[in-house]
């Protein structure tokens, strides 16, 4: 549909306004040629919209605890007790309830929010929860895990994601795959590869019927075939009626 010449500037202005909503606006240069100082801290999470905190939260900024609340334009705002030069303090975001992995040692940049404030852009990645549960619950299955993480896009804060021993819940990065091992079988461990992709199409639960257990690699003239796959499922079912994998 052709755009009227009269509407083009209006459309451009709207596009610019949309682009800057939630975007950083650099501060005008300080006439003293010194870094701007501020008490106001802004935090912007980038890459994990669905996993952002829902309630006000506390962060330590330069050793000082600061409470942050959501602003109408998508930032989280807090204030330190005293003014400090923008860029002199770094933050680590490692909120327990936040289902995301976040960047570490994030430095601030000047942001014009009416006055010049310190903006921390925190890169983050959503996590999903994988729940592994045997059927019946007390089945004598020895279950362990081997994570296959992809290299992180940013330097992450916090310890490595915990991995339970046995049935339980695992926090998984979106790009990460995992091998669930059932190990107390006479034939040796059987691996069940899982990733977020298997839960595509709105699926939240997988069972043994839906997965393809793998033989642990051995030296054979033939590595795998349909008969082998049927054997692996049969071996799992010697110990388990079923194995449920639930995405939360």
């Amino acid at each position, binding site marked *: 549909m052709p755009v009227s010449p009269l509407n083009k500037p209006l459309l451009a202005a709207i596009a610019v306004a949309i682009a800057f909503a939630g975007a950083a606006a650099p501060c005008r240069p300080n006439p003293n040629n010194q870094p701007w100082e501020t008490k106001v801290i802004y935090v912007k999470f980038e890459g994990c919209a669905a996993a952002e905190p829902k309630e006000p939260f506390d962060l330590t900024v330069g050793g000082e605890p600061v409470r942050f609340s959501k602003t109408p334009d998508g930032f989280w705002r807090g204030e330190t007790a005293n003014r400090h030069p923008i860029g002199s303090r770094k933050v680590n975001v490692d909120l327990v309830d936040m289902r995301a992995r976040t960047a570490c040692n994030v430095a601030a940049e000047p942001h014009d929010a009416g006055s010049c404030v310190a903006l921390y852009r925190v890169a983050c990645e959503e996590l999903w929860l994988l729940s592994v549960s045997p059927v019946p619950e007390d089945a004598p299955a020895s279950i362990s895990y081997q994570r296959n993480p992809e290299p992180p896009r940013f330097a992450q804060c916090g310890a490595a994601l915990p991995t339970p021993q046995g049935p339980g819940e695992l926090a998984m990065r979106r790009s990460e795959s995992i091998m669930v091992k059932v190990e107390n079988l006479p*034939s040796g461990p059987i691996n069940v590869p899982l990733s977020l992709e*298997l839960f595509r199409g709105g699926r939240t639960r997988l069972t043994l*019927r839906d997965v393809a257990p793998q033989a642990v690699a051995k*030296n054979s*003239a*033939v*590595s795998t075939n*349909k*008969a082998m796959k049927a054997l692996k499922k049969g071996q799992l079912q010697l110990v388990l009626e079923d194995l449920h994998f639930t995405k939360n």
Partner: protein
Amino acid sequence: MRRLLFLFASLVFCAAGSAQEIDIFDDNDFIDPRERGGVFSDQPWSMKEPGHPFYLVRLYGGAVSDYQWRTSATDADLAFLHAAGSFYRGDKQLNVKFTTFHADDQARLPSYRATLQLGQYLALDPVIATRESEGKRIVNRLLVTWAIEDNPYRSDPGVPRSDRPGEGTAEVRRDRFNHEFGIESDVQLGNVDGAFIWMRRRIEAGSYVDRISYLYRFRERLRSNDRLRLNASFGFGTERTDSWHCCLARAVFTATFVIPLIDTGFNLAWAPTYSPVGEERQTHNEFAFYLDRTVIARLRDIARR
């Protein structure tokens, strides 16, 4: 020296394939006994632990276009039903297979084939030793095959006993069945996984056709959340009637989409075959669409016996 002997034994015992090797719809059913909990002894032909017995029955059914019958392209379209039962115990394997074909009368194809196979697994040191293969034993399999199918030419007029004029035409009755037997060996040479196959088919009393072939299976590739499975194999062979006729080359490409809810695979296969026809060579394209399903898979827990 022992490795050379085993290689020689493998090559001698390998050649003869299961009847109708590289059939477009016949799956490989090799299961390493160690995957069933078996433990080989130091000798390649014996086991310390037999592992769990396992048996399964698989069904296949579908249609094939331009069916390749042994070394001949038939230009025939047919429907088929194939049942394969495999029983694994210790280092042995027993296969019983039955296939029915339905094609039009002009196709001159057998209407059924029955196959019996006995397999022996053995653990050998790598034939080609590398640093990575040091200390690793490779499990191979010898598979002896006997197959029988009805002779599509059994109703044809008999062959005259004598070609001298005036001596009449006392006919040699055509056999009702065709028989085949042979041996296959699945081997691993370095990084190459393959099967050497020798098959002998009886034409009439005292007359045989020999086929020797080599089959290489590529590793399975998984796509689309492991629901799409891609397989490929390549084989080439030669046949001796009055003399050796070389060579036939054949590839089979199969895409299998599995629907877990009904535990059924939908298969689409393509098998281009390059074969000698008289003094020339031609390429035939065989296509198949079929379903496959494991109807019985039972693993016996030896602790519960």
